[in-house]
């Protein structure tokens, strides 16, 4: 385990230092450095402090754990690996990720899980412990998004406005009856069945084990499952000219 003190380092220097090590790495005093772990394949990277935008972009197998909050674009275009955030995250988490898992203890910002895909045996999983901002799962083409709404304060819904616009694949699990959430026309939102829940049992167990939540309580909760009605929602709109 190599320890890197990130104090006063810019992102290029920090990331060069990370690339220079094959083994596991602890980053201390992280303060907004971007692109940590970009494309990383083998490391385990533990980060104390707050990493900057695009943490784990193109991640390709490495494990990243953050003891704090993270910023925008966590796991952008992630291919494989695992990112665990013990705090909140910013916007566009999991943009176009096609594999691996992102577990977030707290809340996520806008456009969470936008453009998530799935492919052959690759199934990306994004579990948000708290709430998400607007445009959750926009253009989602595959994968699983779970929003748990833990520590929800007040009456706000666990998902903000305009979720699932343009969705054409994948599945969302929202721990709520979603009565107050307006979904677009091309999706079906229905209560989760035991078969649905079995699909996410593994992820919830891992999430709870990593982030110290009560699995039984979470698994027993009521979820709404959201799926698109069609893989081809736009095929009627055109006429050849």
């Amino acid at each position: 385990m190599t320890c890197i003190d990130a104090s006063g380092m810019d992102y290029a220097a920090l990331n060069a230092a990370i690339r220079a090590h094959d083994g596991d790495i602890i980053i201390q005093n992280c303060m907004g450095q971007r692109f940590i772990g970009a494309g990383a394949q083998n490391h385990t990277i533990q980060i104390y402090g707050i990493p900057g935008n695009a943490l784990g972009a193109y991640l390709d197998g490495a494990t990243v754990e953050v003891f704090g909050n993270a910023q925008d674009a966590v796991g952008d275009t992630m291919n494989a690996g695992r990112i665990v955030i013990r705090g909140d995250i910013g916007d566009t988490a999991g943009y176009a990720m096609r594999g691996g898992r992102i577990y977030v203890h707290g809340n996520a910002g806008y456009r969470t899980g936008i453009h998530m895909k799935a492919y052959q045996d690759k199934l990306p999983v994004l579990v948000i412990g708290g709430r998400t901002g607007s445009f959750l799962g926009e253009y989602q083409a595959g994968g699983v998004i779970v929003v748990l709404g833990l520590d929800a304060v007040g009456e706000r819904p666990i998902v903000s406005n305009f979720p699932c616009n343009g969705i054409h694949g994948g599945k969302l699990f929202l721990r709520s009856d979603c009565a107050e959430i307006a979904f677009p026309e091309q999706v079906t939102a229905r209560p989760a069945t035991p078969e649905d829940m079995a699909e996410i049992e593994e992820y919830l167990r891992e999430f709870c084990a990593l982030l110290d939540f009560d699995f039984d309580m979470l698994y027993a909760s009521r979820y709404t499952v959201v799926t698109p009605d069609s893989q081809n929602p736009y095929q009627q709109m055109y006429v050849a000219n």
Partner: protein
Amino acid sequence: MGIQWNYPEFEVVRNDSRCIRCQVCARQCANEVHRYEAEIDAMISDESRCVNCQRCVSLCPTRALKIVKSDCRLRENANWNQDAIREIYKQAESGGVLLSSMGNPKPYPVYWDKILMNASQVTNPSIDPLREPMETRVSLGKKPSKVERDENGRLKCELSPQIQLSMPVMFSAMSYGSISYNAHLSLARAASELGVCWNTGEGGLHQDFYQYGAHTIVQVASGRFGVHKQYLEAGAAVEIKMGQGAKPGIGGHLPGAKVGPDVSRTRMIPEGSDAISPAPHHDIYSIEDLRQLVYSLKEATAYQKPVIVKVAAVHNIAAIASGIARSGADIIAIDGFRGGTGAAPTRIRDSVGIPIELALAAVDRRLRDEGIRNNVSLVVGGSVRSSADVVKAIALGADACYIATAAVLALGCHLCRTCQSGKCNWGIATQRPDLVKRLNPDIGSQRLINLMTAWNHEIKELMGGMGINSIEALRGNRLMLRGIGLNEKELQILGISHAGE
């Protein structure tokens, strides 16, 4: 049968005295225009299905066929012309958005054709490229703007990563999905043999083509199809696609029907699923955000690859390019409004964007005025049709050109402009195996090599005539250009004088 609002656009004219009933035309037409009626021993045509791709004409062994534009005309006038009326009928019938293919066909000015080049007479003698060395190699990337030395006084020789090209022309982005495996293979092989680059487009790089990586530009678009670490590392450069000349402000949409097993594997999306590239990158709302994507790609490739940012030529292109040049990008690619596409809404294709000639001149001047021209190389496309266009583009300030329509023409495209149907009889814009195999990659790549080799000779001839023996000395050399029939404003934007001045 109900009312047929639109009479077929083309007529199939068959010279029956020449027709030997071989039925090649019937077998070759994916649109099923021709069929053989055994009872009457005759070939029958349904011209309503004809797109005038000329496949049957080209393969008819007795030259018995020709396709002509129908002279059955609506009562059009100068305002309500035939196309305008037909489009109304189509939309009134279907309620659909009009979808077209290939570049803007409208009669807007083509500035290349209003620019003339210079040649040496008496003084500054011209050069004969057959006898004297001429340099058409270019390297694209950030160039140092001043000489720097280390503490021992030695020159610092580390350059930003560059793409090396044997001539200032590359094959522009066309995705696997929009065009076929054999089309990609032809482009990849030709680029490698020529020492230039081809471009994956936004549909990923087929596993079979990683061997051509040194001559491949890998594209990253808003859908991030097929983008992963190995892909980024495979290419000679990474291109961020922000926009496309044929459809500025519009994303891409490959229908699920075209996402078969192979395209699915390459794009890394489920089979049969639509591949939707939204118009914006949802993580880019500013130059600062763009900088973030540029540097995330540089970090993921350990700063070994130049990053290209491709944008469509639109109204404030000079300011946009200035922002891109400050974003850390190494190369800016600008695509003019005549650029081709596999499918674009007709209204967007025909009325959004500006000509590349004006965009290029405006951008080059702006970057020079701001002292940041060396931060980036400029690549322009949409549409560059000949070596003369290339030379004019370079004299207007480009480092290199992108060609795509010209490249698919070399592969056999006949500009029938129905790529969106997926039934390309020439095996280019299709995924149907029986059609794809019609494009022989050995022949296709050779035709591309022939075209580029011919252009390179012509570029040298044109340069030699001007008394210039290096492409470097031509770049931005607007004194070599004169406008013909252009107004003051156009000349001012192009930064050239009028012919006779």
